[in-house]
């Protein structure tokens, strides 16, 4: 049988409960702003409890910087998912990308941190905003405020919180992975390790010697995607000339 006492005392249980309630209230759509404040408060409480649950990193500076960046990333992600207007969602996503770039820098992946800001936040989010400029109706569209009903909201929030709690519980329960100790014995030479001082040179060396085929395939994929995107638009324009599209304005989906 479930030991109710130990369940109620565990921090992970309360993280799941607070997180699910917070996310459900934030994504509800109906109701006044009181719902949003309560949902935001519960989500922030769940995040703080999760931060307490995580093991100590061993240094004040690293731990506090991690908390700031990770908290910013999580709050911006929740803001992105709960925002009414998709333009706000895109802006929240840009904030998530900045926080994740900071996390990459903290992990020692300097090139990827800068590449995330330049490529993701600088090109992909801008493309999203262009498409929104072309396709978003003025004002709030009704489908941004309603969802598929209460069941998908509750079940997906619960699943998400169970995923996070499950990962946190499993990781805290495991001893240090054995392969780490094995690799430490056969560690690559100092110049080739992930923490090599010449980060860009070592990354370039690994990229173009060990992962050369992947680079070529990625280049081909980019070309194919470019041709494909243009072909889709041209084909659509051709079809439009043959049959004029039926553009209905503000039609609700009800039979």
């Amino acid at each position, binding site marked *: 049988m479930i030991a109710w006492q130990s369940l109620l005392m565990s921090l992970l249980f309360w993280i799941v409960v607070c997180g699910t309630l917070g996310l459900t209230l934030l994504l509800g759509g109906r109701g006044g702003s009181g719902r949003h404040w309560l949902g935001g408060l519960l989500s922030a409480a769940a995040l703080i409890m999760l931060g307490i649950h995580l093991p100590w990193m061993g240094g004040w500076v690293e731990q506090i910087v991690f908390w700031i960046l990770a908290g910013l990333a999580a709050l911006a992600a929740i803001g992105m*998912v709960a925002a009414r207007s998709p333009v706000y969602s895109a802006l929240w996503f840009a904030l998530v990308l900045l926080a994740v770039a900071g996390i990459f820098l903290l992990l020692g992946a300097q090139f990827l941190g800068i*590449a995330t800001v330049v490529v993701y936040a600088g090109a*992909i989010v801008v493309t999203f905003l262009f498409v929104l400029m072309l396709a978003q109706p003025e004002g709030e569209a009704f489908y941004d405020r309603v969802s*598929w009903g209460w069941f998908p909201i509750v079940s997906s929030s619960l699943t998400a919180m169970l995923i996070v709690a499950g990962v946190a519980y499993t990781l805290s329960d495991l001893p240090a992975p054995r392969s780490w100790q094995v690799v430490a014995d056969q560690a690559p030479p100092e110049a080739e*390790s992930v923490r090599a001082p010449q980060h860009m040179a070592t990354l370039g060396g690994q990229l173009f010697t060990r992962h050369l085929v992947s680079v070529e395939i990625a280049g081909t994929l980019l070309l194919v995607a470019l041709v494909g995107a243009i072909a889709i638009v041209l084909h659509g324009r051709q079809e439009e000339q043959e049959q004029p599209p*039926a*553009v*209905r304005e503000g039609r609700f989906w009800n039979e």
Partner: protein
Amino acid sequence: MNEWAVIQNYLVLGALLFAIGLVGFLVRRNMIVMFLSAELMLQGVSVSLIAWGRLHNDWGGQMLVLFMIAVAACEAGIALALILMLFKRSGQLDVAQWQQIREEGQAPFVDREIPEIREEPQVWPSLTTAGVEPEQDPEEHLHRSRV
């Protein structure tokens, strides 16, 4: 041992970002926000990959994230082209418009309650007219004043 404790933090952060992206993908109906949630899931996985790469002292984590950025760019281009084509056909970014491709034997989703369209009170400042009236641009109605 300390390294393992350090990496646990990043792995839980990766799981958190992935989970929030999952919620966004399943809950939202706007096609662009659904796609942004999928990108958020990719970000969570990237954090996890780099954390594992740091733990095992392996460059593979960072390499895979690099290729994921390239693939995500391709995917964004094609997905946005497709979304634009769908928008041209149906006039909306709503995924519920395309229910004819659902599974057989499943009832269509019907909007039970159509939310009321709230009219925001537009308060424009009013100034006393002075001077010469400027020329009206005859094509001004074609510009969108706000998004």
